[in-house]
């Protein structure tokens, strides 16, 4: 048996592939993506091992066995790649179990043919340094399976790549690039060249596939492919640290080998090994002890741990509770009842300090309703950022007094981020009379983190709802100017911040590990907020323009064209091409700047409704009519439920047509009213909207 350089390289590649398999499989064995990809990587390791043994063995019958083995591993690599294309990037298996079996069925048939017949590989030969295969008549079958599985897999990935975007697209790019390079290079040395009787390079194939390995590792570190980045970094760091320590005894013993040889002869290395053993034992021994200790404690304090489990399970569900009052009540009641505490309450931050929001248990009426920011308890919680036990504060009179006032044995702070105390829980004595344990504190800490997030979410939604309600209340005012007074610049900005915050949280949804419901809630907040912010923006724009005193001469035809141009992109998105009949001689109209938006608002209402009904018909006719100009805008975006044309006093803000364009109709009506323009709004051909505008012109116009 000879360990030549090829065998050494192939064993090394086997070890590298095996390590990579561990990285892929161990941290992510619960995820199907990692599971299936580990089949692919595992087969790479088997293939490299098969090749290593193929070169390592000297006896022909054994070499033939390993030849068969490595061919089977090769075919399994192709099948696993195809299998992987059905789970990535969706993260869900998109084919049935039977179809999955079908993917691997050819491998089973090939295995039988390889190991029990000479149909595919008849024999092997060894000639000087070169080892190769003598193929049987069925060799083409292996090639077919390999090419079809890889080809189909690549086709599926290319299709997914074309329709993907962002990080997923980048992940797919590196999977495709890495695998394609690997297959191309290894395929050349191990599939194409053997066809022509050239076997001298087959040992290089695993080495060449390191292009694949580099590409995938790059995608793991850069684009979190397979979600094993953290595990990889931890393992590498741990490996380096352990390696550094474990090599020490060897280095010392090697250095002292001549001196040690006197006593231990050639077995000096046993001392190094013993040193490593002791170090490993001292490291793991403590962990083993902790493992058994925790197990024993769990058995002894089953009840307590059970209540902790319930609390932790509940804490993860808390961010889903959207009603803040209900959330606070649930939080306190569950803690008090599950842990068995005499009383509990929660304080939340307000402008001046911390307000009592919910309390339960004995003497709750005597609790302070408000705690100032400067209170020593608040300062302590902000500073230490951890639960505070009463016994820890013994001797600090100011704190002790406050804790007595709060009826608290423990205070649990809730932080959104460093230094930002959003609230705290004050919990009384345990009804069992026992003291709080370290496990209790740990559970409270974890609970407080989730509680802070839930409080922030719920409070944030409440704030948004309040703003929304404020905007709608304001919308009901009879005068648009009154409405503007109520809709301050600040509300618009707060709305934008609410949307911005949702977007930032969504951008980091993977980091925060939000579940789907939280993501959906954030999306809803963002969408609703964006709509409200857009409405406020349009109303404010009207207000700013209508405040300008100067009167300008505006060309009516040009104003219509400019409005169409402003909405051009939106119309294009839904495929609307306006049919226009606009006379060039419509003349000039004396107006203030808000008139520039008059047709824009009418057309925007049409846009929202055409979009809603997925229609594209829109027409605009504008011509001189007696002493004025008549403009008719018609669309097929659903009719108005009521004819509202007669009322130009601003009696209704939102029309009953569409979802978002109501404010535009209202603003158009106010602009019409400001300028003495007649605007009739009605239903057109039963299923469309119609705006008839009559603009009076001055004698010169």
């Amino acid at each position, binding site marked *: 048996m000879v360990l030549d350089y090829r065998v050494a390289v192939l064993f090394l590649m086997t070890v590298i592939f095996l390590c990579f398999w561990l990285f892929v499989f161990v941290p992510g064995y619960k995820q199907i993506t990692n599971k299936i990809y580990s089949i692919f990587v595992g087969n790479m390791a088997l293939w490299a091992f098969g090749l290593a043994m193929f070169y390592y063995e000297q006896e022909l019958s054994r070499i033939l066995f390993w030849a068969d083995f490595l061919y089977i591993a090769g075919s399994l690599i192709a099948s696993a790649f195809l299998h992987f294309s059905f789970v990535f990037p969706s993260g869900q298996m998109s084919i049935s179990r039977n179809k999955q079996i079908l993917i691997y069925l050819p491998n089973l048939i090939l295995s039988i043919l390889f190991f029990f017949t000479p149909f595919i590989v008849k024999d092997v030969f060894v000639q000087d340094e070169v080892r190769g295969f003598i193929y049987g008549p069925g060799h083409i079958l292996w090639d077919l399976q390999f090419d079809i599985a890889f080809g189909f897999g690549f086709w599926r990935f290319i299709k997914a790549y074309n329709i993907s975007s962002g990080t997923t697209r980048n992940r797919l790019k590196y999977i495709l690039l890495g695998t394609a390079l690997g297959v191309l290079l290894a395929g050349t040395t191990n599939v194409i060249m053997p066809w022509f009787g050239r076997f001298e390079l087959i040992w290089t194939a695993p080495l060449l596939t390191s292009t694949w390995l580099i590409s995938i590792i790059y995608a793991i570190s850069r684009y979190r492919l397979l979600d094993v980045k953290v595990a990889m970094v931890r393992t590498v760091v741990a490996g380096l640290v352990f390696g550094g320590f474990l090599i020490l005894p060897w280095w010392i013993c090697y250095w002292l080998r001549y001196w040690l040889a006197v006593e231990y002869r050639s077995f000096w290395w046993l001392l190094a090994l013993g040193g490593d053993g002791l170090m490993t034992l001292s490291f793991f021994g403590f962990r083993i002890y902790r493992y058994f200790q925790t197990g024993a404690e769990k058995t002894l304090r089953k009840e307590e741990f059970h209540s902790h489990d319930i609390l932790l399970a509940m804490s993860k569900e808390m961010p889903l509770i959207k009603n803040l009052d209900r959330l606070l009540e649930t939080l306190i009641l569950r803690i008090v009842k599950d842990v068995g505490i005499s009383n509990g309450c929660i304080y939340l931050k307000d402008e001046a300090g911390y307000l009592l929001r919910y309390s339960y248990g004995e003497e709750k009426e005597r609790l302070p309703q408000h705690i100032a920011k400067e209170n020593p308890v608040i300062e302590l919680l902000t500073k230490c950022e951890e639960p505070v036990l009463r016994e820890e504060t013994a001797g600090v009179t100011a704190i002790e007094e406050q804790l007595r006032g709060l009826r608290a044995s423990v205070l649990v702070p809730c932080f959104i981020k460093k230094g930002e105390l959003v609230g705290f829980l004050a919990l009384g004595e345990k009804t069992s009379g026992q003291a709080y344990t370290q496990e209790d504190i740990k559970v409270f800490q974890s609970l407080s983190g989730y509680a802070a997030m839930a409080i922030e979410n719920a409070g944030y939604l409440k704030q948004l709802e309040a703003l929304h309600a404020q905007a709608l209340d304001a919308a009901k005012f009879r005068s648009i100017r009154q409405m503007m007074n109520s809709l301050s610049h600040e509300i*618009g*900005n707060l709305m*934008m911040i609410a949307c*911005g915050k949702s977007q930032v949280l969504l*951008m980091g949804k993977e980091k925060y590990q939000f579940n789907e419901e939280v993501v959906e809630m954030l999306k809803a907040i963002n969408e609703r*907020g964006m709509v409200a912010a857009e409405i406020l923006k349009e109303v*404010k724009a009207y207000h*700013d323009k209508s405040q300008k005193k100067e009167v300008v001469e505006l060309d009516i035809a040009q104003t219509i064209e400019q409005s169409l141009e402003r909405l051009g992109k939106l119309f294009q998105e839904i495929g609307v091409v306006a049919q226009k009949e606009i006379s060039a001689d419509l003349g000039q109209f004396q107006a203030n700047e808000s008139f520039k938006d008059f047709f824009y608002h009418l057309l925007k209402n049409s846009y929202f409704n055409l979009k809603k009904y997925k229609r594209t018909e829109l027409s605009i006719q504008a011509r001189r009519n007696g002493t004025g100009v008549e403009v008719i805008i018609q669309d097929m975006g659903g009719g108005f439920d009521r004819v509202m044309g007669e009322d130009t006093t601003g009696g209704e803000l939102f029309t009953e047509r569409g979802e978002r364009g109501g404010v535009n109709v209202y603003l158009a009506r106010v602009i019409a009213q400001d300028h003495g323009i007649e605007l009739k709004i009605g239903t057109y051909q039963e299923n469309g909207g119609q705006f008839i505008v009559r603009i009076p012109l001055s004698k010169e116009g």
Partner: protein
Amino acid sequence: MGKKILLVDDDENIREFLGGFLKELGYEIDEAANLQEALTKLGQYSPDLVLLDVNLPDSRGSEGLKRVRAVSPTVKVLMVTGDADSQLEEETKALGALGYLTKPFLMEGIQKTVEHHLKD
């Protein structure tokens, strides 16, 4: 040390939120609530980028940008506005503004625009 951004907006909430977001992205942030304060900080702070609100208590429209240019002719400026006004956009672009960030904000867009203009 990250690149420096001067955030000029009269609304404290916007400054706090946008500033916090940009800080998380690794930028160093200083704030100004009006143009006068911004002009003073331009000299002291030497920002790489200025996010300048179009409407400030002591300046309107392109006036703020003109005065920023007078103090620092080369500093990169992105205008922040709630109203899409093509005339103002052309005017400020002629004065060397790199572009507009419009409200309501799309945070991903802000991140990309700022990164684009601050990359070496």
